[in-house]
């Protein structure tokens, strides 16, 4: 036998208790949607997992009203430390149910279990833990003393990291004192609905988080709802543009995290084997469905052939197949639609004269799959060097000098991420300083941490998620006394006095307990 044909090692689905139908999560309860339900399928087998409800306009309205009610009645009145307690509780529940969430995410999204188990779900918990700690320290968030929350946040998230994107959105919003209506992507609603069950387990007050499902029109209705104070969107640049257009002229606050065409720059003094690993992680992690993917490899001409040779050898060891198998490196493409787009752009790359090479992978009979692919001889004017492919496809370009590397890296309408590989610290700092990208990784790629702000330049969007900066998207400076805001000030005073009262009660009982 061949050792490298590792025997199947599938993760068990036994602990997953999925329902056949899922409703909308509004005001703390699951209710039937009034739109036409749709099926969510496993992209690795094309089999139905469950039916998901569609929220129509009336449902969106109900969700926003529930969020408003919860904001006015409960959440905006809670102390930061009490909000933090809920977030800590959610984080712990995510950890407790980590295996179940990982399996569900893999089933619904198609990404390999080793990624959901080792990356997605641990980061979800980390995000809630991190922002739980911020909830009572908002004075230090960088928006001045006693900053105010915004109100109801409408959040629309993509399908590439379903639960992780949910955490990136919900955790800072709740920590800052907002309530939420979240719409997951149409093809990956499942884990958001499991998360709703976790919110019930955590006893989060009804309406603080509402999760509504549906297609793009549900998202548009939510974003355009007049009762929303804040819109946060992660997804494609074209949809991001229409979101920005539709809320222009309103007082809704907006943050956008959109597409990218990240440059991964490998200098001739790079730690070569780790750089090859970084290239693989940059573009083949999550089947390349990563907005900050290192989809353009800029390699110094003097080491081009060696790097490509090593990269091809490494790509031959990537294992494509059953996402639930613990040894799978490359899972399924999330949808037939996305697969068609990857194929179209890849074919275009060949027509434009780039040289295509794909790892030799056996493609399963059902489901949506695409072999890890690289294009060499790519010019800056090729479509595959400019358009976001959002798949496991790498375009390789070369450069001769650091100045040329910087110029080529910046020559894109996007500006989300970049990577630099060099053993020379001073060069890393000098190049990073000149790159117009929100995230620059040095001698690594695709690393995420809740304490590190993430976001884009140019057409990659605006606003930051993560870290202290991520709070700014959900806060505004305290309302100062002045003629314009007397009413607001009065309101604040009254709520403050109420708070003081409840705090007084608590401290009295605490004293009793101490005795």
């Amino acid at each position: 036998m061949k050792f490298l044909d590792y025997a199947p090692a599938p993760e068990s689905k036994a602990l997953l208790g999925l329902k056949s139908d899922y409703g909308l999560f509004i005001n703390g309860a699951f209710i039937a949607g009034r739109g036409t339900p749709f099926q969510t399928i496993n992209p690795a087998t094309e089999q139905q997992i469950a039916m998901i409800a569609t929220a129509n306009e009336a449902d969106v309205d109900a969700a926003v009203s529930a969020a408003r009610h919860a904001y006015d009645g409960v959440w905006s009145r809670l102390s930061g430390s009490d909000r933090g307690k809920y977030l800590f509780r959610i984080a712990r529940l995510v950890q407790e149910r980590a295996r179940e969430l990982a399996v569900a995410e893999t089933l619904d999204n198609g990404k390999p279990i080793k990624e959901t188990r080792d990356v997605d779900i641990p980061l979800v918990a980390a995000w809630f833990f991190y922002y739980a700690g911020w909830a009572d320290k908002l004075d230090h968030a960088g928006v001045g003393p006693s900053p105010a929350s915004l109100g109801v946040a409408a959040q629309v998230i993509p399908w590439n990291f379903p639960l992780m994107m949910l955490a990136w959105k919900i955790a800072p919003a709740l920590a800052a004192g907002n309530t939420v209506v979240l719409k997951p992507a149409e093809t990956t609603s499942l884990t958001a609905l499991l998360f709703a069950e976790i919110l019930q387990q955590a006893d989060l007050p009804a309406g603080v988080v509402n999760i509504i499902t549906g297609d793009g029109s549900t998202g548009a209705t939510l974003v355009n709802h007049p009762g929303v104070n804040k819109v946060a969107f992660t997804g494609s640049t074209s949809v991001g543009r229409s979101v920005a257009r539709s809320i222009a002229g309103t007082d809704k606050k907006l943050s956008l995290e959109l597409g990218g065409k990240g440059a991964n720059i490998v200098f001739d003094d790079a730690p070569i084997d780790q750089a090859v690993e970084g290239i693989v992680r940059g573009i083949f992690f999550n089947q390349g469905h990563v907005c900050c993917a290192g989809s353009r490899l800029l390699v110094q001409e003097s080491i081009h052939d060696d790097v490509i040779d090593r990269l091809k050898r490494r790509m031959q060891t990537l294992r494509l197949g059953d996402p639930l198998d613990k040894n799978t490196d490359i899972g399924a493409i999330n949808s037939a639609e996305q697969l068609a787009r990857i194929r179209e752009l890849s074919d275009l790359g060949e027509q434009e004269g780039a040289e295509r090479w794909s790892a030799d992978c056996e493609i399963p009979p059902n489901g949506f799959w695409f072999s890890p692919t690289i294009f060499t001889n790519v010019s800056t004017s090729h479509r595959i060097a400019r358009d976001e492919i959002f798949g496991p496809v790498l375009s390789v370009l070369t450069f001769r000098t650091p100045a040329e590397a910087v110029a080529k890296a910046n020559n894109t309408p996007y500006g989300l991420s970049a990577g630099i590989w060099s053993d020379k610290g001073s060069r890393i700092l000098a190049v990073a300083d000149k790159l117009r990208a929100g995230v620059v990784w040095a001698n690594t790629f695709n690393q995420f941490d809740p304490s590190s702000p993430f976001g884009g330049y140019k057409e990659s969007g605006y606003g930051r998620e993560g870290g202290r900066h991520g709070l700014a998207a959900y806060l505004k400076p305290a309302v100062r006394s002045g003629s314009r805001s007397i009413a607001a000030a009065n309101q604040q005073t009254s709520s403050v006095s109420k708070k003081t009262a409840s705090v007084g009660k608590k401290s009295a009982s605490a004293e009793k307990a101490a005795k």
Partner: protein
Amino acid sequence: MTNSPLATYQPDQRALALIGGEATDANLRRYLHGIPGIDAVGLEARAFDLGTRSIKTSSKRWAIDTIIGLIDLTTLEGADTPGKVRSLVAKALMPDPGDPGTPRVAAVCVYGDMVGSAVTALGSAHAAGGTDGVTVAAVATAFPSGRASLAIKLADVRDAVAAGADEIDMVIDRGAFLAGRFGQVYDEIVAVKEACRRADGSMAHLKVILETGELNTYDNVRRASWLAILAGGDFIKTSTGKVAPAATLPVTLSMLEVVRDWHRLTGVRIGVKPAGGIRTSKDAIKYLVTVAETVGEEWLSPRLFRFGASSLLNDVLLQRQKMTTGHYSGPDYVTID
């Protein structure tokens, strides 16, 4: 890559051609410092990633038997006696008396003065350079510190070879390496290799111990690996087992990468031996995965990969019994040597 022009050189000429001149400190420094560096975080992340492979059922059974066949069963104690060595050899030949189908280990590894005892104890099972049977490896060159004159080190090697050792595990002069005297380290390995020559002209196999725990950085490990291979080592070995840390997965991975690159460059296959600190089947399986995914499956043969270990064997045997019988046994169901 066997059609590379370098493949037509004799090893020493090939090395000199690569270095671009005599094996002086300056030439070697220029060559070794021209090798791409290692990013420690990235290397460790890759090793961790390889360690998460899930080896189950038929793959695990194959791995368990393969591990046994790759072990250099070792005793390197000041208290070693011919009796202890006989006991070790008996264990090497019959690892699990409860299952005679259990494979034999690759070799026994002893101090130089115990080689005669090991050879005698092996008797007809002594492979003596052949492929069927168990070979005898001897540590030499003032193991483990290597702090003796060259003449003493060479005498140590010749003694062991004369006594019938099939393999010599030498230590490099770490002091010289860290002081930048690469030429001295190189020359010593060349001299030891020559001392491995038997009366009939055949050569004992040379394993070069880098003692990675004393070299401290991955960059040093990589340079020492290149140096040992350039000088003619047949195997590169992590550690003596007397210094902590001994073998680790990232260190072994970095050495495997050198071996892979040398094969790409010259078509020649060099062996790798992690030694010390590998005690469980689970850990050993991680090494098998790392070897297979870095240099290829053909390296999973005693000619190209060994585990230097003593306690590992019994843990592997317990796992093997578990896979055969379906239930766990205990330490009293495997023999001590």
